[in-house]
């Protein structure tokens, strides 16, 4: 018998409508996520990704359905919300919406102090996260003098310092240059190594295909497909429905096989390096 699955997030039939809107932002969404996995959320703008993320740590309360974190339904009381928010952290898409203090050090200390730890522990944690995410070179600069990538690093440190079980990143690479995108991706890989479950909204199918354990396709407030990248990308109707292309690597690989240039039982490569290796 297989051991019982360790679901860190379970959402059942979750619905949510923004005030004054007639259309539901989330419309009976069902989803389960295993602990420690890397999940890419994909779907067009307005497909409900961000709204769902806000539901996951209790900022928005679903009008219908329920969300369980580590098996426990979210309780919308002060204490319950505190518990949920200490387990699930969100790195928002726009760092300027998240960073409220001009001082990097103060900014990072905010979350951990709210968890009620004592000052010396908080200082230690803040300093270790500053070192870990390589924020040291610009830690004494004001927030308004940081580049977009540096702001993003601080935004991730904001959450990481709280040691969440689940970390949500809403389009972390939006508006970053390639160098900082790489840097942020390295940081994200580090999160997984720590056993943190990472949920990421992204529009980059190539990256999602290479990185994720699971891809969740969303459209109009529903999950239309969830599964391993290979499975999801094999479902061309679902991809088209979500407005996505087939990953470039996969397309080239399939074309090469069609042309008879590749043979054998090789598993489709996840990234360019994998493809090069097969060739």
């Amino acid at each position, binding site marked *: 018998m297989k051991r019982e699955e360790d679901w860190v997030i379970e959402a059942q039939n979750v619905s949510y409508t923004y005030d004054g809107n007639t259309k539901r932002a989330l419309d009976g969404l069902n989803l389960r996520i295993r602990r420690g996995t890397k999940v890419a959320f994909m779907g067009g703008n307005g497909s409900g990704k961000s709204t769902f993320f806000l539901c996951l740590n209790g900022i928005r309360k679903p009008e219908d359905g329920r969300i369980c974190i580590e098996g426990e339904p979210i309780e919308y009381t002060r204490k319950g919300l505190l518990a949920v928010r200490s387990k699930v952290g969100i790195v928002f898409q726009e760092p300027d919406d998240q960073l*409220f203090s001009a001082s990097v050090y103060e900014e990072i200390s905010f979350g951990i102090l709210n968890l009620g730890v004592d000052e010396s522990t908080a200082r230690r944690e803040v300093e270790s996260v500053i070192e870990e995410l390589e924020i040291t070179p610009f830690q004494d600069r004001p927030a308004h003098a940081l580049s977009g990538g540096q702001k993003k690093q601080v935004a991730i440190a*904001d959450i990481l310092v709280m040691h969440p079980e689940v970390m949500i990143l809403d389009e972390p690479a939006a508006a970053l240059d390639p160098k900082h995108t790489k840097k942020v991706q390295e940081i994200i890989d580090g999160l997984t190594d720590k056993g943190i479950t990472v949920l990421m909204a992204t529009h980059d199918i190539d990256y999602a295909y290479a990185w994720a354990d699971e891809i969740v396709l969303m459209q109009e407030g529903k999950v239309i497909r969830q599964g391993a990248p290979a499975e999801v990308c094999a479902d061309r109707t679902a991809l088209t429905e979500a407005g996505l292309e087939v990953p470039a690597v996969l397309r080239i690989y399939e074309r090469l096989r069609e042309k008879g240039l590749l043979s054998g039982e090789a598993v489709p490569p996840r990234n360019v390096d994998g493809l090069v290796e097969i060739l």
Partner: protein
Amino acid sequence: MLLIDKLSYQSKLRYINASEKLVYAVLTLVLCILSRSVKVAVLVFTVNGILIVGKGGIPLFRYIKLLTIPLAFLAAGTAAIMINISKMPLDAFAFSVGEWYITGSRNGLYQGWKLCATALAAVTCLYFLSLNTVMTDILGACRKLRLPSLLIELMLLIYRFIFVLFETASSIMISQQSRLGNRDFKTRVRSFGALGTSLFILSLKRSNALYDAMESRCYDGRIQVLSREQPVRVGEVVMIVLYEAVLIAVWFCL
């Protein structure tokens, strides 16, 4: 203001304990105003100048430019004291204009000069603080001095979002200009109105987003943060105490 902010991050005195600098600036300021003594004022003006330009490394021309800002206010204020309009000429000077005199008394001139010196010296105290201390450090020092937390939280948010607001405003302005939004006076006025409206809406949106982001980090209505502090150095404290003592001595003895 943005210039002062930039300079404060480059100051060589930036990493001196902020409470020390705050106490120094406020004490000196208070002594200046209480004493109303020209000698104290001259001493304070000179010492602050040396500290800001010599020790802090703020470029001299920048400092002089900053000092000219309050001059206009000062001129208007002292003119009111020095110059009178009356039917009787006073002892210092008098120009007759018909039946009236534009005139001033010796005492008035002296008062005006005293006011001028005191005000300028007081301004240098504030410049010392703001040119050598980063805003977040000033807030940290205010926290130490147990100022009301509501006040400090407001200052913290305002300081951060002034810059966000400026950035947003300037990008909207650029996009207006790139669409000929300042072609003539009429369009310029209309563009400016539109800028105000959209800034207001964007600010509201932004504050909602910020609140969500803070809530998701367990915000409970109090902004608690840790600031990094530079150690208090005994030598510096002794210097400050001595200096204030000298000021008091100058005030009473000279």
